[in-house]
């Protein structure tokens, strides 16, 4: 299990190549790549701030919970921080499990967490200046899907 932050752009494919090696008993690898959207010029750059150490540790706790809950063989999370240009990858999540349903669900769950509650502070730089982004209602609704599943 690996949770890392990076100030540099990265190639999701290279991560998948490494992650899917030597998995003769795994069967299923799901990935998600989030890419910074240009929004037709409305966004010049995205800026993500993390609290080094704290951010990885918090994500690591949720990731470890997902590993147990979905019976994962392994998982990988790489998250960009700093200024991110449109078209560059922001986040890459890979999950490995024996069965595809578990790999998909874990990847989906981790993305909902990362997009809504992970300890990042997000700023959008647009043609009219920069503004801090607050959590979206949709993100909280996405995350709530998983809470309901736990209690019913």
């Amino acid at each position: 299990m690996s949770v890392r932050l990076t100030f540099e752009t990265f190639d999701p494919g290279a991560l998948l190549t490494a992650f899917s090696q030597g998995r003769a008993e795994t069967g299923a690898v799901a990935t998600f790549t989030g890419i910074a959207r240009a929004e037709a010029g409305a966004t010049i750059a995205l800026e993500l701030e993390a609290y080094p150490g704290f951010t990885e540790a918090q994500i690591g706790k949720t990731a470890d919970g997902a590993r147990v809950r979905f019976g994962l063989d392994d998982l990988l999370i790489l998250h960009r921080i700093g200024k991110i240009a449109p078209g560059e990858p922001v986040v890459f999540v890979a999950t490995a499990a024996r069965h595809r349903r578990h790999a998909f669900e874990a990847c989906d769950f981790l993305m909902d967490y990362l997009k809504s509650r992970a300890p990042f502070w997000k700023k959008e730089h647009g043609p009219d200046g920069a503004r801090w982004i607050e959590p979206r209602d949709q993100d909280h609704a996405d995350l709530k899907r998983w809470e309901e599943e736990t209690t019913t």
Partner: protein
Amino acid sequence: MARVLLFGRLSDVAGWRDRQIDSPFLSALRAKLTAEDAALGEALGGKGVQVALDQVIVRGDAALNPATEVAFLPPMSGG
């Protein structure tokens, strides 16, 4: 001399993000920061702002030792 870290919009409000400040308690540190910069004081008490001492979220007051890292964390937006 606690190490004080500000994240997200808090550092924009304050104009700094990392300072050494001498204070024996978190409550005293808050009072000191507010006395110095009323806008920052208001922002630190804003909705959803959390405090971490040495990377652990705390509620209420706490004693600070000279090596304590005090981080003020506005609502986390996710990535």
